[in-house]
């Protein structure tokens, strides 16, 4: 099996910059975005093994923001 450093899959990270196939993330790390080439700055993503594995759905981000506002409804 292959394991890589700092790959906790539970913590979404925000893309702050994209250069070619590499995204700079909100935690200061960088990740390969080859699997999801349509990502853009501001997207929230899950990273494993130095690779962006998935993008959080818009509804999930809205639901999180709603949680912070004290809302009672899911988006």
């Amino acid at each position, binding site marked *: 099996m292959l394991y890589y450093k700092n790959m906790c899959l539970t913590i979404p990270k925000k893309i702050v910059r994209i250069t070619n196939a590499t995204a700079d993330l909100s935690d200061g790390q960088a990740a390969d975005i080859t699997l*999801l080439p349509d990502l853009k700055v501001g997207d929230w993503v899950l990273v494993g093994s130095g690779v962006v594995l998935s993008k959080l759905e818009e509804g999930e981000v809205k639901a999180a923001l709603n949680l912070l506002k004290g809302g009672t409804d899911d988006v």
Partner: protein
Amino acid sequence: MFSGLQLAAAFAVGPSKLGTCSSSGVHLLLTRYVNNPVSVSQDEVRAALGSFPALMPHLLLIALANGIDDPFAAKVVEAYWIGNRLLDNVDSRRHVQRLIATEAKRHGWKEIDLALMFAKTISCQARPHHSLYALRPFWNSGRQTSFSPDIQDKCNGCRVGWGQVVNISDRKLTVDYQPLVFPKPNCVEFGGKTTIEIDRGFIGDVELNDWVAFHLGLGIDKITKQQQANLRQYTAATLAVINGNS
């Protein structure tokens, strides 16, 4: 029998040793504590476990939802890693909002990180069991429909595994277990029975046919038949959530 803090430390040794899910290599400290709890201060161990960004919020959430003061109470730790009825009492939205309000500042966590950590758990009415987060990439597929074998292996090793001992040596155990399989894109299931060799880790006296739990290939503890049933039940519930949302 492990205390809650010992059990939490035991499960954290694997990721710490591999440098995953923790920014600091605290596995030696944790290992020492699991093997000899009087050799290390509990405060040190609690601080070390606090460096795991997902662990503490989950333990605190389960404790809060059940009116338990200590997030390292044995039942709380067991609920997160193995699964028990405490998970069923997490009324996610209300408790997550309380968690954010009361714990974010105290621990220096970003509120948005906590909200994103739990938002989908709430909307899917899922249980905050460790398996949900070990398999999260498959739950949050976006446009990605298939993952490479090393990612599949990683997720399989990250979730807590269990099996029945079929061979014992000084440092290794061979166990019958069911791996997770990925038969098609966006689908995770239990596979057929196979055997796997694991490091004996923290498992002391053990006999053939005992049930054991392991994490990242490291033996954690013997588990009872009830714990084995719970681990399977809550992992199966995670798979149902993931596959239902694919």
